[in-house]
């Protein structure tokens, strides 16, 4: 994995607004990514379905999946070690904790993208419950279907996942699609949009 490719997105998560790149922060980012290579325990679980299960027949999933040949339901995590490290750093070095946290988010996305390339070359993006006006409660259906407990992810009562650096969602098969801010519940109050950016890409639109 090329760390330099991840840097712009990590800067994006850390609220960088175009000026004042910091050598110290860069060093922390590269250190953190190096540490993640050692401590992260990346695991990915998925099922490929020819037709969407019932919970995906409603909006916004229906639109996302319309015209798709099938759907991959998946969950992925960096494991508990990353959570532990961030937690411990939060007591001893908050700057590093915040940087590692942002790096871990970018790293999980990157490792997942990498893995998904092995699943096919005609896949859409990962659409996770909570996104585009969907409800995070739909995570419960994904958990019933996949049992991500097998790779160490559990779902808490208010639908948070443990380890914290975990994701679960769906991917359209046979249909390319672009992410957008349409229907996002955060759109009204989004710090990324306010700055002319997006949460899912560092490239300004």
């Amino acid at each position, binding site marked *: 994995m090329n760390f330099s490719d991840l840097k712009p997105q990590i*800067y994006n998560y*850390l*609220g*960088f*607004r*175009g*000026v*004042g790149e*910091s*050598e*110290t*922060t860069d*060093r922390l980012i590269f250190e953190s990514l190096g540490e993640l290579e050692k401590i992260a*325990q*990346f*695991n990915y679980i*998925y*099922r*490929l*379905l*020819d037709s969407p299960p019932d919970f995906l027949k409603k909006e916004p999933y229906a639109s996302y999946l319309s015209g798709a040949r099938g759907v991959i339901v998946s969950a992925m995590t960096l*494991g*508990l*070690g990353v*959570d*532990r490290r*961030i*937690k*411990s750093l*939060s*007591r*001893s*070095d*908050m*700057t590093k*904790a*915040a*940087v590692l*946290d942002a790096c871990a988010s970018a790293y999980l996305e990157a490792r997942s993208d990498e893995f998904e390339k092995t699943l096919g070359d005609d896949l859409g993006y990962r659409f996770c419950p*909570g996104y585009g006006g969907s409800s*995070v*409660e739909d995570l419960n259906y994904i958990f019933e279907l996949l049992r991500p*407990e097998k*790779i*160490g992810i*559990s779902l*808490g*009562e*208010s*639908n*948070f996942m*443990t*380890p*914290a650096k975990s994701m679960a969602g769906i991917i359209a098969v046979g249909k390319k699609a672009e992410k957008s801010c349409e229907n996002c*519940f*955060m759109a*009204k*109050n989004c*710090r990324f949009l306010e*700055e002319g950016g997006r949460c899912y890409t560092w490239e300004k639109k």
Partner: protein
Amino acid sequence: MLYLGEKITVFDGGFGSELERRGIFCQTPEDLNIENAEAVKSIHRAYSCADVATANTFGLNPIKYRGKYSLREVALRAVENARVSKKPVLFDVGPTGAMLEPVGKLGFEEAYEAFKTVAEISRDIADGYILETFSDIYELKAAILAFKENSTLPVFATATFDASGRTLTGSTPEIVANTVSGLGADALGVNCSLGPKELLPIVKRLLDATSLPVIVQPNRGLPEIENGRTVYRLGAEEFEYYIGKMVEMGVSAVGGCCGTTPEFIERIAKFSGQSVKKREHIAAAAVNSANRLCVIDGVKICGERLNPTGKKALKEALINGDLDYLADEAIKQQEAGADILDINAGLPQIDEKALMPKIIKRVQEYCDLPLQIDSSNAEAIEAAARVCNGIPLINSVNGDDEVMARIFPIAKKYGAVVLGLAMDKNGVPETAEKRVEIAKRIIKRAAEFGIPKHRIIIDTLVVTASAEQRLVKETLSALEAVSRLGVKTALGVSNVSFGLLNRPLLNRTFLTMALERGLNMPIMNPLDGEMTGAVKAFALLSGLDENAEDYIETYKDFSPSAAQTLKKEKGERTADTLFDCVKAGLKNRAGQFAEEELKIREPLEVVNEVLIKALDEVGRLYEQGKLFLPQLISSAEAAKAAFKVVSEKLGSRAEPKGKVVLATVRGDVHDIGKNIVKVVIESYGWKTIDLGKDVSTEEVVKAVAENDPDAVGLSALMTTTVPSMEATIKALREAGCRAKIFVGGAVLNPETAARIGADYYTKDALEMAKKLDEVRGKN
């Protein structure tokens, strides 16, 4: 009695996958024991080529089981069904399915109780236990203790590993082996996880790390997805081939897990009764936490800073129950290069037995290092060893028979490595010979309790050179002689300089002398860079640190000038003054700059003219988008470090501006934002009371009543936890809270904040710090 280790024993194959293959689907497979006993029996019959039968009871524990019947009823029928195989029946025990604290909510003691219940309903009907598919060694420890303490049947324990060779909670095969062997299980191994081919390296590592019989029950290869269903494709012949390899490597029992069918077990049944290959394993003084194994060999640093002797701040923290202070000290020592941490709570005003487990739990929540339980109170040692996640070192016994009779049974039960002091009730003998005699006595007595020599460490006791100069060499002679007995050695190094000038010099020199004579575990202050440096240098020069890897990693950024000047450190911006230092966020140097500044200014002036102005400048640049989050936090941390130095001079004038209670609300576990707020508002002079994450309404109300803060800061990151925030605010209002309530977090905005009854919404940490000052100005 079912016994593994001499002849190969063949276990049966997959049960759940076999049910599915036969078209039997069921939410609670355990209920089939009653509702479709014939189907269960027919699978057991099909597996009767195996030497043992595993009852269909994997999920049968009070936490996981959600079926219709009583646990006892299901257990009885399950064992009865398995009896059709006419083979000894193992009661199958899976994990509870709930996560243990601190990650989850299930207490260690609750997990123990759940497994105890399982033991009680099964011990009179089954022939042994197979604990399977465990990921968390803490849960596995609770289970092994429960079955060992509540039954006399053999206990076999197997864990599950992923492709990275670790369990899902991050334990390596060596850590699993050390823990399970230490706790007295009768065999250990691996099940499920991967296919037999992928398991080979893990099996090899388990065999090398334990003297116990090893069990392997792989899946039928790696699963593939076909039409949305999981399928296993590995052929029985290939399965048999790899099982054969494992038999050659020295495993004692083989079987199958997910996807394997009676055909597979029939194939491997041919290994049954073959002699188990004799093998050597490395006998070591190994201690471990969930994520770290420390073999006490070569040189390993034991951090001594969690021992209150001579440490005023730690004493106060222990008396006040301030466990966060201990967690911070633990993290510092880990980062400074300690390998093990000594934990001592021996103060007359403290109930050690009650406090020790709490300390152990808090320290292991934040720190990965294995722990040394340091106490003379046997009850406290046992309470601590029980909740320790992994295998601890127990400090200490001595040559007094009564002490050994009290402590060795605890060490044996919990698998601990034991530190023995070369003294007895007559005190520390003067001569090396007499100390070696006591060491021999300790080794002999330990063996009688079943503790082998390789799990003993002897401390030949450091005397102070100021009082007994001529005895310093006796300690070293004894050390050398004891090493030759085949045990490892330890010394509390810094005692040597007590009462003398320039203690660091003496400590360092004595440490080097002792290392040369064979010291394995100096008990010392790892934050003393000269001492840890001496250990690193010794490891390099004596060839322990192969290719100088560790040394180079430690000193890669070293340059002679950096050691002498405050101005430049690699990759950091330069700073000439405290103002620049805070602006540049150089936390590690802010204290030194503050001291420089205090030479030319009054303390209050340093605060008002330097620190506050620097933070204002940083805040302005942050708002303008010229600095971003990491820089804001590091400036806040630098200001805090400087303020700590200045406040010692300020005395009572260093009072905080006020108090703020912080919490991430119930149901929400995202706390990075709240932690940033904490650092930033502290740098602005506020004292925080941080309640952590997933904090209940009651806890917030209680903390506010106890602390009477000026403000409460609540954080929520998910739409689903905003209602919990609203409930917390409502409860605070009902309790008559006079503090202003601030809310923040990704899903909030001013409208939502107003709707749920908060006083203020602030978009980030800096805005909160400013708003707090503003509100304070008004009052």
